[in-house]
């Protein structure tokens, strides 16, 4: 079978290319004076058109109580549910029988930011945060220990609530 070429039928009689060209030139020129969409990132982090969603799931934050201690009771639910297996928890117990985490580490490289830890936490202690500027100079710095998790100050994520799907 011979190779055939599909020839498109173009409207040869009905189009004015000169006029189309000038229209195009005018259009691009008018765009010079239109408002720009660029957000100048390090200075501006949100604009009136765009802000980071309050449901953004970023690096974790551990909430603390009035004495500044982590709210965590080392129940072990978060390492249990974590699909990426990135939470390391060694529980301890004081003289009054209160459980607290001896070691609580989250490997942010392994984390898939699913937010299950926040969802499962009975004490509302561990949270994923509305935060995305995480760069470090060493790989080791990406394992956040308890002290660092407590020291984070960024807002925590608002997880989706099935009983209130629109967040009202």
């Amino acid at each position, binding site marked *: 079978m011979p190779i055939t070429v599909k020839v498109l039928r173009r409207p040869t009689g009905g189009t*004015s290319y000169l006029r189309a*060209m000038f229209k195009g030139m005018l259009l691009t020129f008018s765009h010079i004076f239109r408002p720009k969409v660029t957000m100048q990132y390090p200075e501006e982090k949100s604009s009136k058109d765009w802000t980071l969603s309050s449901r953004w799931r970023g690096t974790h934050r551990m909430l603390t109580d009035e004495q500044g201690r982590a709210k965590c009771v080392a129940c072990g639910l978060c390492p249990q549910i974590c699909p990426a297996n990135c939470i390391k928890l060694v529980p301890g117990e004081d003289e009054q029988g209160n459980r607290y985490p001896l070691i609580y580490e989250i490997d942010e490289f392994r984390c898939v930011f699913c937010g299950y830890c926040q969802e499962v936490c009975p004490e509302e202690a561990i949270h994923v945060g509305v935060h995305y500027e995480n760069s470090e100079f060493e790989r080791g710095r990406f394992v956040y220990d308890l002290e660092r998790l407590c020291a984070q100050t960024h807002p925590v994520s608002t997880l989706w609530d099935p009983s209130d799907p629109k967040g009202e």
Partner: protein
Amino acid sequence: MTFFLIASIIKLLVVFTLIMVGVALLTWLERRVCALMQDRLGPNRVGPFGLLQPAADGLKNIIKEETYPATADFWTFILAPAVSFTPALLTFAVIPFGAPLNTKWGDVPLVVADLPVGFLYILAISSLGVYGIVLAGWSSNNKYALLGGLRASAQLISYEIAMGMSTVAVLLLAGNVSLNQIVAQQQGSIIHWNIFPLSLAFFIFIVSAFAETNRVPFDLPEAEAELVAGYHAEYSSMKFSMFYIAEYSNMVTASALMATLFFGGWSVPFTTWGQSGSPTLIQTLVTMAVFFAKTFCFLFLYIWVRWTLPRFRYDQLMSLGWKVMLPLALVYLTVIATAIWFFHDFLGWAYDTRFSLALFAVNVALAIPLLFVLDRGHIVAGSVERRRA
């Protein structure tokens, strides 16, 4: 003699620096204008308004690794950027960029080399640039680069003829090939600018100039969508950068040439500065500013067109060059030569406003059928066919 040597060396350095800085700023302008046309901001981080961006780019290009394809023809590969870069700069040498500078040792013409055959020199040198591109494409030993080089040579040869023909009309009117004489002939009223008596020549010239400088819509040698990057696909670091500098200096030269040949060069409209008596320093500076402003308008046009129009298909490019531009230039030359003979020698008119207007009328009379053919019978029709009710 000593004065001539020193003045020439100073002019050489000044012009070289001006072109290099101009080219650098042009890359910045290109990116800024492109960004603005696409509702972005463009480079604005390095220095005020991002003006130092070209310096940052240059630094990056210098410290980047140079790569040499294993199968490339080594010496030709190295030579090609220089071969494309040098003619681009050489051409500017004969373009006058201001009224003569009046110093206490005598008047210094503001042109690097005031050649009496300036125009022929431009025609000779400007076509040399294609060698760099062809050599680059061939020596890279890369099929895309070779295709880019082939396209460049075919394209430049096709449009060079039309370009030369269109400028012959200017020479007919000036009666001289010295660019300073061409500027002098256009001095006085705006009507004397060659754009009016020779509008169609300008049309042919600008289309050919776009093709000569390999810019959109004629940028087939580098056509990134089909040829990766065309002839400079294998080049890296400063050698790559030199192709860019060559492209932009070609643009500067072509724009300066358009300003000189068709828009009165450095002459300020409605004055005779620089022709009658020695100009003052202020007058010299103003003429320089006027020249650079005119050149800048064309540079902006280059950028504007680049970010508006799509690229030609290769066969369209060739048929435009050989079937439209070349015959048009030939016919136009014949008509305009006849018209000049008729008005000047037969009717005995002087080269004045009446003469320019008469030639302008001839141009308009020619332009209407031309646009009718080019535009397929629709000069002012809608750009899209109206649906029949």
